[in-house]
């Protein structure tokens, strides 16, 4: 079947985060911590804590948070050698689970694992409650927003958001105008990226509602940690993360096309060379459904079929991990070999469900993010549960005035540039540069937005090179699944760690790792 093996370097499924704060200048010892005295020569003894940063394991008084205390004690009992051993064990578990990526050298390629940290992040039930309700609220609001922009467009008519959000968005698909997705759901699967700022509050950085990935790492992180440190779990009541696939399947089945009794679901992947292929196959396997590529499907009379050695089998629900423009070469990019010719026509006719719906991407544009508080209010008549990073629109005169006066405290971003181009970080600019930015923003106010500089919280993280724990910045990606009249948030999530000291970029291509994330039961 497949002969050539070649894996591209896997990228972590996320765009860069550019939220930079000063690299900590002063380092302080643990200080007044009462564990300190017992921990001479143990792994935490050299943990240096910068009080300017929000450390996830300490409370405001500087004591270890209650939820972390037991863990801190248990880990504190280990010597550094123990820890090195455990670390090696966890690593081999990743190799055996096959969660690896390829790194190409001069002569040969090497297989590597994503850096994984044995010290889990713990989220207390009451904190999790906020995240979970907030994630659901956002997903629901975005879903209503999508319905609206592909139907009456009331929110634009009433002037709540500008027309540019659809008119100038490359992700807005005309062809979806007037299409009613089954169950009224567009964003079946959403990934919400959340950080904790140094004010101790959670902020959403981004809503990923195209094909958010990373959920398989959540589950594999848990497996690896269990294998290495099963004893620790005895002391905590942690929610499971392995129920993701069953919930996903149940919700996918809930949006089956009309007239189908027992739907056949499949996962469609761009193929084994895709960086997230592991996840695609993982999800298909754990849901117990077929993993297919475009060439395994075909369309006849506007129904979709899967080729099997026993002949064609009708497909009803497709969890697609292919971008909009590649799903059907007859309707979108004609050079796409990943899609299925005729798929979109079958979808429009209601004979097959696609999750997420085509055109969903319009709602995770950067510009839409800045209007999220308004969007939530407009559709749900609720206050946002999770904070948005406040966005100043330079097109509004009073906000422009504030921006011009506070450039050193802000991040200035062009509205339409993707991938981090043209971003100015206020506290990194020289005086002259600040003036230059001022002139540029004043000349083209419509082109710019500004946000306060966020400081991601830090978490003790084991660092191989120094064989000790150090503070590293973390964020959290949560996963929400919505079906007909039901939604599910995975209790846990992907905590990503910026492994370089002082770095705030949690992207794995930039040296990011991850942690198991425990949500405690009430």
């Amino acid at each position: 079947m497949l002969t050539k093996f070649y894996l591209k370097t896997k990228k972590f499924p996320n765009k860069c985060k550019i939220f930079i704060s000063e690299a900590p200048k002063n380092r302080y010892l643990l200080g007044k911590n009462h564990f300190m005295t017992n921990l001479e020569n143990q792994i935490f003894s050299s943990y240096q804590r910068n009080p300017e940063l929000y450390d996830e394991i300490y409370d405001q008084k500087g004591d270890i948070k209650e939820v972390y205390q037991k863990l801190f004690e248990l880990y504190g009992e280990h010597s550094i050698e123990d820890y090195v051993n455990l670390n090696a064990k966890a690593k081999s578990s990743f190799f055996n689970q096959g969660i690896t990526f390829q790194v190409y050298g001069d002569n040969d390629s090497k297989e590597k694992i994503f850096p994984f940290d044995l010290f889990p992040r713990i989220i207390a039930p009451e904190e999790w409650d906020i995240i979970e309700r907030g994630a659901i609220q956002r997903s629901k609001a975005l879903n209503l927003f999508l319905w609206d922009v592909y139907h009456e467009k009331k929110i634009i008519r009433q002037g709540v958001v500008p027309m540019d959000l659809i008119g100038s968005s490359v992700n807005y698909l005309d062809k979806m105008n007037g299409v009613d997705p089954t169950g009224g759901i567009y964003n079946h699967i959403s990934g919400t990226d959340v950080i904790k700022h140094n004010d101790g509050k959670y902020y959403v950085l981004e809503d990923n509602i195209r094909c958010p990935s990373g959920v398989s790492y959540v589950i594999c992180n848990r497996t690896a940690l269990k294998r290495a440190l099963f004893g620790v779990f005895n002391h905590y009541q942690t929610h499971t993360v392995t129920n993701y696939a069953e919930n996903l399947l149940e919700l996918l089945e809930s949006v089956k096309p009309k007239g189908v009794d027992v739907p056949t679901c499949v996962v469609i992947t761009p193929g084994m060379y895709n960086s997230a292929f592991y996840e695609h196959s993982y999800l298909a396997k754990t849901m117990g459904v077929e993993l297919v590529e475009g060439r395994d499907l075909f369309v006849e009379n506007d129904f979709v079929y899967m080729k099997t050695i026993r002949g064609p089998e009708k497909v009803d629900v497709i969890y697609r991990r292919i971008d909009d423009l590649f799903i059907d070469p007859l309707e979108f990019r004609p050079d796409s070999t990943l899609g299925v010719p005729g798929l979109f026509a079958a979808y429009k006719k209601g004979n097959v469900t696609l999750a997420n719906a085509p055109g969903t991407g319009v709602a995770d544009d950067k510009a839409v993010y800045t209007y999220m508080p308004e969007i939530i209010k407009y559709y749900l008549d609720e206050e946002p549960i999770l904070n948005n990073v406040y966005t100043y629109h330079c097109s509004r005169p009073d906000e422009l005035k504030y921006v011009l006066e506070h450039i050193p405290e802000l991040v200035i971003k062009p509205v339409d540039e993707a991938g981090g181009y043209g971003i100015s970080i206020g506290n990194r600019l020289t005086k002259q540069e600040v003036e230059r930015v001022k002139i540029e923003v004043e000349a083209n106010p419509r082109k710019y937005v500004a946000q306060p500089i966020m400081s991601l919280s830090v978490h003790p993280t084991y660092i191989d090179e120094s064989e000790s724990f150090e503070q590293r910045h973390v964020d959290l990606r949560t996963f929400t699944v919505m079906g007909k009249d039901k939604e599910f948030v995975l209790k846990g999530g992907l905590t990503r760690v910026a492994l370089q000291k002082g770095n705030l970029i949690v992207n794995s291509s930039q040296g990011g790792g991850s942690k198991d994330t425990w949500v405690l039961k009430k």
Partner: protein
Amino acid sequence: MGRYIERSEHIARYLSVNYFSSLDAPNEISQSRQFVLQSMLFMVGSPVDDKTHKLQEETILYKIGLDPAYDFSIINNVKHARENANSARDLISTELYEAINKFYHFTLNYPKEVFVKNGLYDFTTNVTEMTAVLRGKIRGTLLHDAVYAIIMLGMNIERATQIIRIINAKYHDALKAQGSYGDKFSKSFEWTTLLKCAESYDMMRRLYKKTPTSISTLEFLILNPNCPRSIMNCLNQVYNHIKILHPSNRYDNQSTAFLIGKVRAEYEYKLVEEIEGNIQIFIEDILHNLTQISLKIEKEFFSF
């Protein structure tokens, strides 16, 4: 996947058995290091034409065992098996997948200096043991449906192919080694080695209770359906598995199932005496038939 697993096992065992049995072989030729190395190369499909060329033991062991640049090396077979498992990851069980991965990382990380100096036994034993684990995982953790049938199909075709290749190699060795101590071809020491390479020596002793000869060995390894390594047994299994993939009873003389049935029927009632006279032709015949079967399977089941 099944094919590559099976192939790595046979190559590993061939290396190990030949190397170690040659150390105290009864005649000089069989004991000669050059002879053994040549035999190894012959078996993996790179026979040495120039007999005067002196082979370096370490080079040859490295080449067949761990050389990523040599297509038929064990490491490449394991790589292919893993790659295959990667592409079919959704179809196979987590347990099987993890076992394959473990196998892969074991071969990949095996230090090459150790292997060529004193790790041959350790490495090959591990390879054969890990393949046994894999076989257990295949049987015990996969649904016995089409996917299982495809894996088993590949495994049995490959086993038949490897057994016949080993027979071929040892047949050549037996021809070369005869005469030195007055042994006849038919009573050559190489037949014992052959049986050991196929892990069938003990079974053979139980059945025949005599020193293996050319006739009894060939009969046992080719025609006896009760020997789990025999060609006949493989063909029977291949036939059973193709029936799962292609259950139709409709007469279709173009189908793979028909071809397998035809080949199977031919060997089922073959007498070893019919083979003995022209072993070489017979071996080539079997290899040809097996290739035809593989091609046909590929065409019928993998080209859509």
